[in-house]
């Protein structure tokens, strides 16, 4: 029953046009290794939102993020960034509007934190102007915002996992794009560093950035997202404010996980408490 409801919702929302959505996709089909991961998916990222995409492994959430960022070319459908078709935009032009923190980024050996953050300035530079005072100011601001300013002279390979991830976020910030896409930015971090990063993202969102993140942790998503997209099998099952859409039925449907939903005593957002098969009698 919930299924049909959600599908109705999906169809309504798929055709509803959000005013000034900075990034939207229409009837998207994306394949990877000849397998259709996403089929006929339409989505709009609300302006000034902190959108979080959740779903079980292999549901297509990272694929969707990669397609939205222009890393994967969709087979069918189109993506519109800032009112212009992504396929018709030059890669540097895209990079000035949309930043991405990929999962797979590698820090070259011997690079310092500030040097890595400065790499984010690439789309704003040219052969003859490879550095400017503006670049320096923006790198400093990005490191200030992520609390990595004191690490600037340190080698990236010598930083802790949490520090390193914040440096990567600073690099994406230095790109100075109104839109920032994050692919599982908190994976492999301990809980304190995860919360620290989520707070940073929420703060960046408050300052006017539109953020889109793929996350594994449902509770982080429910607490910090202003807009939640739940995916399963390459489809969007539900989307909206976490408080409106996170229900026991939704979690059971999307993750196949029986749970109880209580109110987060700190933020009053939904808090998911898994029951687990053993306790489900």
């Amino acid at each position: 029953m919930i299924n049909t409801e959600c599908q109705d919702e999906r169809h309504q929302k798929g055709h509803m046009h959000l005013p000034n959505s900075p990034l939207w996709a229409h009837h998207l089909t994306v394949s990877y290794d000849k397998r259709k991961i996403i089929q006929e998916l339409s989505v709009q990222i609300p302006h000034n939102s902190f959108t979080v995409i959740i779903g079980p492994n292999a549901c297509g959430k990272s694929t969707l993020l990669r397609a939205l960022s222009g890393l994967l070319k969709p087979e069918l459908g189109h993506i519109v960034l800032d009112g212009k078709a992504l396929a018709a935009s030059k890669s540097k032009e895209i990079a000035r509007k949309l930043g991405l923190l990929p999962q797979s980024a590698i820090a070259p050996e011997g690079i310092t934190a500030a040097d890595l953050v400065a790499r984010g300035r690439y789309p704003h530079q040219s052969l003859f102007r490879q550095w400017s005072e503006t670049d320096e100011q923006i790198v400093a601001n990005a490191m200030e915002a992520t609390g990595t300013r004191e690490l600037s002279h340190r080698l990236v390979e010598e930083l802790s996992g949490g520090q390193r991830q914040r440096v990567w976020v600073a690099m994406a910030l230095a790109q100075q794009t109104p839109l920032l896409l994050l692919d599982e930015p908190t994976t492999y971090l301990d809980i304190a560093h995860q919360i620290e990063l989520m707070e940073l993202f929420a703060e960046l969102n408050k300052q006017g950035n539109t953020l889109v993140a793929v996350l594994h942790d449902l509770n982080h998503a429910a607490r910090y997202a202003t807009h939640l997209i739940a995916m399963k099998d390459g489809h969007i099952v539900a989307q909206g404010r976490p408080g409106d859409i996170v229900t026991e039925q939704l979690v059971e449907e999307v993750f196949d996980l029986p749970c109880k939903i209580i109110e987060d005593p700190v933020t009053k957002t939904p808090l998911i408490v898994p029951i687990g098969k053993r306790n489900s009698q």
Partner: protein
Amino acid sequence: MQPIQFGRREIVLTWPVKCRVGVRAAAITLVMLGGVLVLAAMSLVYGTMQVRLIDAVGAIFGQAEGMTRTVVVEWRLSRVVAAIVFGAGLGVSGAIFQSLTKNPLGSPDIIGFSSGAYTGALLVLLGTGAVSFAMVATGAIAGGLATAVIVYALAFRGGSKGFRLIIAGIALSAMLSSLNAMLLLRSDSDAAFSAAAWGIGSLNGVSWLHVAPASIVTLVLLLLSGLQTRALREIELGDDAAKAHGVSIERSRFLLIATAVVLTAVPTSVMGPVTFVALAAPQIARRLAGSSRSLIPAAVMGALLLLASDFLAQRAVKGTILPVGVVTLSLGGVYLVWLLFSQARKRQHD
């Protein structure tokens, strides 16, 4: 605002391009350039026929006649220019491939591109008996590119890159070396004899006829690689990050590979497959100059290494002039063993 600390002393250059330059990298590069100049001067002056430095310089600027001119300009200068320009080409070629494969072993002399270029040159030389340098060079470039295509085709199946590429390259390199030996053995012409002489890489008997065009091509490609350095540094962050920063990754990677292959193939068509320079120059330059965005330290180090090796090769054994490849191969062998051990140790620590 307090200036940001980049972890090393830097100055901002405003001309010819506005960029940050590490003070240490710049200083080391200048010292290496000084070394190149001193070695070049020594190579021009010393030899069976001693020439005063002032006469040698005069000869270069057309102020000498007869034997002095012939010795300095025709024999020694062509050799010095070849060592400097080809050394720089090999150094940059190595730097590009090591960066693309993200591995210090991923240099063109290890992963078969120099052997492939030599195969190409041999096929043209022995097959057609061609003496036209343009044809031999074209053969070398074609051989290098063909090897690159094969290595990449072998390595990219399944998607993983770096280390697979090196293994595939080493295997192909071994096969190509035996193919080269077979080509030489099965041919009994004079061409084979002279080709075999630079089988290990030699600057003996090079002349302006070959050095001039090959140097011009190499210099143009060095300039081209300079234009692509920024994209190369972005690709080091991984394909996704580079793309997210607006690098057209397929195009940039293709250009970089093509440039680096030709930077190996053209010097190889003149002096044969000289090993070690492409492998070691970028790494030594890095260790001395610190990590640098520029390819210039690797280029200057390459020039210094090849020039120094050739200087040694001409004087190490009294009465004989060794091929420069013998010197680089002996040095390179030691370096390679050390590199493999330190890599293995690092792997254990990881």
